[in-house]
């Protein structure tokens, strides 16, 4: 395939990569399959042995049909949030049609633009590593294709211009050999490297005003993953993701590493408010009481319950090592009492929820490892110290749907059949009895829900009832859902029964690697559960989700590829840590590091030089004039260096001009000195507009001047003869000959001036 023919393949590849990238961004594997098959087929149909293309009218009709079909579908039952997805879908179909259309220059331009728009639409839909990698591939292919297109288009234009005057000029024949292709490859690689390098610089310094948050919706499909809110209508179908996020090693107080009997619940966010209109649980964003701790370096622990002095009892250690996840959140079991990081970090502790968060501003990426000291059953004293007098709140019993109270009572009655539920405490009962009652009721209802409700990640089979809250539908109608529904249902029931509760989101660690002795936490292990208040500052986790279902899903999804996933996870962690989560804090950190590095590198050296100079000045008793002396010496050295540079450059130029490269150094020096008059003559001619071409010998140049002006040619010919004698003959340039040369140069100048006057 010649260089110009390669463009067609590059154009096809560009469209193909764009379509794959968009399908990956949408996580729509049906779209991926259809687009890849149709695109591949288009290559065979249009470029095969009997290539056929769609006529223009048909491709135009198909494009209009796609616009009508996809546009009406979006208007009828589309979601405004998914507008970009719908637009991308339209672009993809049009691109597919264009792959079957005629390959005119205009069509090629449209194909290029459509591919780029498709990728940009994907950027607004996804920040996944797989998509990011495909964007990088697209960038490379786009550069390659753009360069090939440039050549192909120029060749086509040149050929067409020859056809216009057919019969008058021979047709254009373009020779494209191996050397051309190899050099093209080189220049394409250089361009790619340049684009990536410059792009990285722009990316690093691009001003970032907005905080990084949600990275765009994914329409009706979502993946499992940690979030600091729960949207109950976020997606009907949840795709299980096997991505390894991090690992957790549990070390008992006695130093033994082991797997716990119960799954490990790693808390990431506490959700306190249910917004019925938005059908979502959100966290309270209060900043009050937040305490910041600065961790020391080298994994030394900082105590979170700083008010406590002395021994606070046995503490287990959870060592968390990030694999591919980049987040500010520090996932911890209940209740963390100490935290250690490999490098100094600022850690914020919310005393109301005991949620930890990295608030460091001096960082580039979010990827780091940390260790936690935790107590599974902390004493009230420890919890009080962690809470540090944070105010009480009655928000944990609020639920905005009045109907829920009747539902809760009905569920309580149903649960009472199979579970032991204590009687309602008296109104004047103390807090301990109230907390005891809440714990027992929560445990009973959670147990009942685990038996009566079924776990599923596919909710598409359950029709949505207009006007009915999804939690009500879950409890009353469907009785089936995933962990968010279980947690929402349990919390709603408990709150309606005036039992203080809240939802916690995070991860459940259930996959234990016996060989590595740690839990592997995957994206699909994201979980939601309920915490019930069991003390003034004490909360107990209650999980209504059937644990067996989670284990079954875990087993079902385990595959051979899991063994190799760590390689991908490493790349993904780099992507998330360095690209996706790069923000203004990382930007300022880089700027600080560069500034301080600059200061360290040069500031110290300058100070050292200054001190040395002062020492010398004092030893030589130069006094205040020392500065002037040093400046004079510095200027002298600089001037000498500059002069040396000029002389070296001039010598090199003369050596090249006189072709003295192969001459011995001593002879070179002699000729440079003796043949100076010839060089001067060339300069005189050059200034007059007669530059000597390198392919002409001096004598031939003199002859060529004759065609222009005989007098000038004669004058220069005499100089050339003299130069030849010095260059090749035994003649030495004696001092009396220097006078001759001077007169010859003058004669040349005179001849040139005569010539200019005449013209």
């Amino acid at each position, binding site marked *: 395939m010649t260089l110009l023919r390669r463009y067609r393949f590059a154009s096809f590849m560009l469209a193909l990569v764009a379509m794959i990238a968009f399908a990956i961004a949408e996580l729509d594997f049906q779209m991926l399959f259809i687009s890849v098959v149709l695109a591949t087929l288009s290559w065979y149909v249009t470029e095969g042995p009997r290539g056929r293309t769609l006529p223009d009218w048909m491709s135009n009709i198909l494009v209009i049909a796609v616009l009508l079909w996809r546009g009406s579908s979006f208007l009828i039952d589309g979601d405004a949030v998914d507008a970009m997805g719908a637009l991308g879908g339209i672009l993809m179909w049009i691109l597919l049609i264009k792959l079957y259309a005629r390959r005119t220059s205009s069509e090629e331009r449209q194909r290029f633009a459509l591919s780029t728009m498709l990728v940009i639409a994907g950027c607004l839909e996804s920040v996944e590593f797989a998509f990011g990698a495909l964007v990088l591939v697209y960038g490379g292919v786009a550069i390659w294709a753009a*360069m090939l297109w*440039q050549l192909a288009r*120029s060749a086509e234009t040149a050929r067409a211009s020859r056809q216009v005057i057919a019969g*008058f000029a021979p047709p254009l024949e373009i020779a494209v050999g191996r050397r051309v292709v190899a050099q093209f490859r080189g220049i394409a690689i250089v*361009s790619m490297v340049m684009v990536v390098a410059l792009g990285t610089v722009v990316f690093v310094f691009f001003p970032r005003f907005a*905080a990084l948050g949600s*990275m765009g919706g994914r329409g009706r499909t979502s993946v499992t993953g940690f979030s600091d809110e729960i949207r109950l209508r976020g997606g009907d179908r949840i795709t299980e993701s096997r991505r390894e996020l991090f690992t957790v090693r549990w070390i008992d107080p006695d130093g033994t590493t082991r797997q716990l009997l119960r799954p490990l619940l790693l808390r990431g966010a506490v959700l306190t408010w249910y917004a019925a209109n938005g059908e979502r649980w959100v966290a309270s964003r209060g900043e009050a009481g937040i305490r910041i701790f600065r961790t020391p370096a080298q994994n030394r622990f900082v105590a979170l319950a700083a008010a406590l002095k002395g021994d606070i009892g046995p503490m287990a250690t959870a060592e968390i090592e990030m694999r591919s996840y980049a987040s500010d959140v520090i996932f911890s079991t209940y209740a963390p009492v100490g935290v250690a990081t490999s490098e100094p970090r600022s850690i914020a502790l919310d005393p109301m929820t005991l949620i930890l968060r990295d608030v460091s501003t001096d960082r580039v990426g979010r990827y780091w490892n940390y260790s936690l000291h935790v107590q599974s059953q902390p004493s009230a004293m420890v919890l009080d110290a962690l809470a540090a007098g944070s105010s009480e709140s009655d928000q944990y019993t609020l639920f905005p749907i009045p109907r829920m109270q009747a539902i809760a009572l009905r569920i309580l009655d149903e649960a009472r059949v199979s579970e032991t539920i204590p009687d309602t405490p008296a109104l004047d009962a103390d807090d301990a009895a109230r907390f005891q009652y809440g714990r027992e009721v929560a445990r009973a209802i959670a147990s009942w829900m685990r038996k009566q409700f079924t776990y599923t990640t596919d909710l598409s089979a359950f029709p949505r009832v207009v006007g009915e809250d999804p939690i009500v539908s879950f409890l009353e109608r469907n009785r089936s859902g995933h962990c968010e529904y279980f947690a929402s249902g349990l919390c709603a029931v408990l709150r309606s029964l005036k039992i203080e509760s809240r939802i916690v989101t995070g991860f459940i660690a259930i996959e234990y690697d016996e060989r590595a002795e740690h839990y592997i936490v995957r994206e699909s292990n994201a979980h939601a559960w309920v915490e019930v208040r069991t003390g003034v500052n004490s909360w107990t986790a209650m999980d209504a989700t059937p644990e067996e279902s989670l284990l079954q899903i875990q087993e079902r999804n385990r595959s051979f590829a899991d063994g190799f996933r760590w390689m991908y996870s490493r790349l993904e962690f780099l992507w998330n840590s360095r690209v996706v989560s790069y923000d203004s804090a990382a930007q300022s950190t880089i700027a600080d590091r560069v500034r301080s590095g600059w200061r360290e590198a040069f500031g110290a050296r300058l100070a050292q030089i200054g001190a040395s100079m002062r020492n010398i000045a004092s030893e030589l008793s130069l006094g205040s004039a020392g500065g002037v002396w040093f400046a004079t010496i510095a200027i002298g050295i600089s001037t000498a260096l500059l002069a040396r540079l000029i002389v070296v450059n001039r010598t090199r130029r003369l050596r090249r001009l006189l072709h003295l490269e192969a001459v011995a150094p001593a002879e070179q020096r002699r000729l440079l000195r003796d043949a100076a008059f010839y060089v001067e003559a060339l300069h005189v001619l050059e200034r007059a507009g007669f530059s000597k*071409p390198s392919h002409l010998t001096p004598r031939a140049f003199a002859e060529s*001047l004759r065609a*222009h002006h005989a007098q000038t040619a004669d004058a220069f010919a005499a100089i050339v003869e003299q130069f030849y004698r010095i260059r090749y003959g035994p003649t030495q340039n004696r001092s009396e000959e220097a006078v001759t040369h001077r007169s010859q140069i003058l004669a040349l100048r005179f001849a040139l001036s005569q010539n200019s006057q005449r013209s």
Partner: protein
Amino acid sequence: MLALALGARTCHNERVKAVLSTPKRRTRIVAAGVIYTIVVLVIGLAAGSRPNNLLIWVFACLLAAMVASGFVSGFMLMRVRARRIEPRRGRVGEALLVRYEITNTSRFIPAYDLHVKEHVDGSLLETAGDAWVLHAGPRDQVHAEAVFRPRLRGPIRLNAFEVTSTFPFDLLRKVLIFSQRSEVLIHPEVRALRSNLLSQITSGGMGGNRLSSSAGGNDDFFGVREYRPGDSIRQIAWKRLAGTGKLATIERSRSVPPRVRILLDLRVATNALKVTEGESARTLEEEAIVLAASFLALADRLGYEYSLSIAGVATPPVALRRGHFHREKLMSVLAAIDLDAVRTSGNGLAASDERATVVVVHADRTDTSIAPNEAWHFTARQFPTLVVTS
């Protein structure tokens, strides 16, 4: 004038300067670049307002591509030098090929997609597209070829030309402007005249087949000369040998082709020509020149000996000859006619004893006083009746 006509001379120093002089550099924005810039700005705004690092990355790469485009094409053209190879003579209505020698003196960087555009008046030369070369490798020398179609007869001055490239991304156009003055002489158009036209007017007349006044043929007796070794024994004059006792060789005359002299009558100044309404005097003169050129071309094609005289314009006499170079010389004379110059008197005909058919071409009307009585007279207005109709 003949000196000008005999060759479109380019001063040597101009050529030399063009090879070694540093060209002027320019950077121009192309339409695609403007659109691209707008798109990049829109994406930049979106990236700035939306916390999406991937969008920022795309924006950064698009911006970088724009900068890289300028860098790559700039580096590519950094060491490119070009010169125009002196163009050959052109003819109105026919393709004029102008070649350019492009030298990439860089040691490492190849140059791709080089266009060469001539700075020329479009009313004189119609261009059919730029000269183009796909690739000029490091230390390569390549030739590009531009095709023009001359529109007017006469000398055309070519001043500067530019080597441009929008490679690699067609966003910026880098331009090298080379100044190299040269002239190309455009011959008048030649139209196909009826092939029997000349044979009709020359047969049997004074320009018809005849014997030349020089020896070399083998037909009729021409004379006797002294024998030279190598002469054929058949040509020995035996009777003379018998009479004088000396060897002599008989010379015979040779037949020569018909002869025609084209006399272009331009004695009357342009503004003194008699033209009808809607007719242009200058066009009539140009048509007369074209008719004369067509007669010359026809005579050349038919193997005649021919020559050209121009009445009203000072031209040296040219002998009757035939052949390619003779034809080109006469065409150059026609090409170099300056119709704005002051007209002279005299008919410009050669010696009166020349034996050739005289064809006089007039611009507006016939004037028989200019030539012998046997001469044939044509006017430019008759042109349509003389050409071959397809």
